[in-house]
């Protein structure tokens, strides 16, 4: 059953002033906020521009679920596979050097709260949880602006006839392409250095049973999350490639900074094609059929790009607030979207209890977010994007090549003693990083990734 209301229902003038809060966007952040507020007794209107929640949404991806699992009856969630292996792979033009991690613990519920999902189904299910808690959902309706009274935000304009809907609180959960928040001067438009373009395909393997299990060495519901860096993944750009296994499809894609897409004249389509044809990737995806091609941007500004989160009558959550951690090792936005929606929903419920609407009354939301993993993680890795950017040639081109060369040398089979091979291998890496001093500096610079 879909929770969709007839889209035209929003034209019904009764919606004006009928709700305690309006949520713009039924993505992860929006549905989390709506569910939280509905659970606390508020009348909530959730407005989504797609024909159903998820219809406009694209991600990699792995959904990280520590908060969703607490908020919902999670057994019914449409999960594809749990992540049993994470693999980080450096690709030069023709070589691969990889590290794979698959702790036994990840096979046990709740599977480290990491599951591959497809957003079409997942977002619809999550919005349904909000509806079951009492939220009213309208779809195929785009919010085009905010309504203000004496400076305070008191509602939204929509593209429906008689589409003005007023309510004491508005939650902006519109995702990274935040036309409403930007149009209302609640945040600045990100620069292209801070936004990545992502393209993705969902692949199926017609007539080949068990092909995903065989190629990725999986049993039952186990799945993989593969991340790729280096010029074999995204050419000269700053970003990476990914492969995730779903139940009976595979998601593959690349994401890299828009700045590089234009500067290196590297089209997303050509970059994806090259990645799929890499000698280390092609065997995983050969003989597949593309069932969907999609694209979306990722806000990557990190901690410095977070706008003011609360305003008189409004709060900004999820990607609209730039809450994505993408540092090469981690690509996490789903958990942050849900966490921020949850805290914003709680703050609004508390303010509503007290009959207060000003930004001050909502301050509990930024305060809670500040204390949560969301801001803590973003701040912890703020330095990393800059460091990686400064070292990008080394990290994405020289090192992948050096590691491949080192591996080739170390395991070389000939009639020279291994000592000479080891020496050659060591030299390949040391040459790339600038000797022992260079290596020490590099280790110092990136020690915080692990410590």
């Amino acid at each position, binding site marked *: 059953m879909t929770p969709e209301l007839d*889209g035209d229902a929003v034209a019904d003038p009764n919606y004006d002033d009928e709700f305690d809060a309006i949520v713009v966007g039924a993505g992860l952040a929006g549905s989390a906020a709506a569910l939280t507020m509905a659970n606390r007794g508020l009348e909530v209107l959730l407005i989504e*521009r*797609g*024909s159903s929640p*998820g*219809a*406009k*949404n*694209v*991600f990699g991806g792995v959904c990280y679920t520590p908060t969703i699992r607490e908020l919902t009856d999670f057994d019914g969630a449409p999960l594809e596979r749990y992540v049993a292996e994470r693999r980080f792979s450096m690709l030069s033009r023709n070589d691969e050097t990889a590290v794979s991690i698959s702790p036994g613990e990840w096979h046990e519920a709740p599977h480290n709260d990491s599951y591959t999902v*497809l*957003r*079409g*189904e997942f*977002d619809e299910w999550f919005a349904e949880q909000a509806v079951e808690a009492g939220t009213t959902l309208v*779809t*195929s*309706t*785009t919010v085009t602006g905010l309504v203000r009274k004496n400076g305070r935000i008191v509602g939204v304009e929509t*593209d*429906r006839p008689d589409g003005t809907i007023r309510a004491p609180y508005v939650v902006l959960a519109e995702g*990274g*392409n935040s*036309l409403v928040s930007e149009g209302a001067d609640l945040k600045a*438009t*990100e*620069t*292209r250095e801070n*936004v990545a*373009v*992502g*393209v993705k*395909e*969902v692949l199926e393997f017609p007539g080949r049973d068990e092909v995903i299990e065989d190629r990725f060495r999986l049993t039952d519901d186990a799945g993989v999350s593969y991340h790729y860096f280096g010029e074999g993944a995204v050419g000269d750009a700053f970003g990476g490639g990914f492969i995730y296994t779903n139940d009976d*499809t595979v998601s593959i894609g690349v994401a890299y900074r*828009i700045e590089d*897409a*234009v500067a290196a*004249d*590297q*089209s*997303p*389509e050509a970059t994806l*094609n090259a990645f*799929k*044809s890499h*000698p280390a990737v*092609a*065997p995983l*995806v*050969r003989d*597949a059929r*593309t*069932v*969907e*091609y*999609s*694209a*979306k*941007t990722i806000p990557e500004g990190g901690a410095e790009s977070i706008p003011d989160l609360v305003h008189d009558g409004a709060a900004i959550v999820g990607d609209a607030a730039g809450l994505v951690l993408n540092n090469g090792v981690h690509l996490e936005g789903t958990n942050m979207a849900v966490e921020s929606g949850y805290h914003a929903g709680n703050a609004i419920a508390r303010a509503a209890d007290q009959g207060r609407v000003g930004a001050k009354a909502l301050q509990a939301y930024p305060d809670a977010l500040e204390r949560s993993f969301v801001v803590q993680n973003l701040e912890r890795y703020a330095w990393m994007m800059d460091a990686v950017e400064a070292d990008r040639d080394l990290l994405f081109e020289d090192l992948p090549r050096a590691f491949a060369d080192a591996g080739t040398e170390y395991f070389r089979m000939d009639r020279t003693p291994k000592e000479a091979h080891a020496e050659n291998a060591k030299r390949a890496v040391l040459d790339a990083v600038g000797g022992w001093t260079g290596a020490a500096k590099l280790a110092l610079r990136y020690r915080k990734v692990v410590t």
Partner: protein
Amino acid sequence: MSAQPTTPQVDNDSMEDRLYTVKYSDPGDSHLDVKVPDVCTQCDTYDCVRVCPANVWRESEDGVPHIAYENCLECSSCRYACSHDNVVWTYPETGAGVTYKHG
């Protein structure tokens, strides 16, 4: 045993076939435009064309890009890419545009 294992051929769909995988409903009007056409005639980078993953923006003879809006995946990249801030970007109305089945 062959000496040189070959990389298996991966057949990629054409852009047309790729876009064909996405459900689309035509809003009737373009939701994309350029603000000032003269800025485009002066522009020599065509960043909108370079970044677009769906071949919506195309160089044209008069210097103002042609916009095949019905290809648009609503990814928003062109909006950020244009360094002259010359892209008009709105959402297709009332849920029109792309509908992803998987996402």
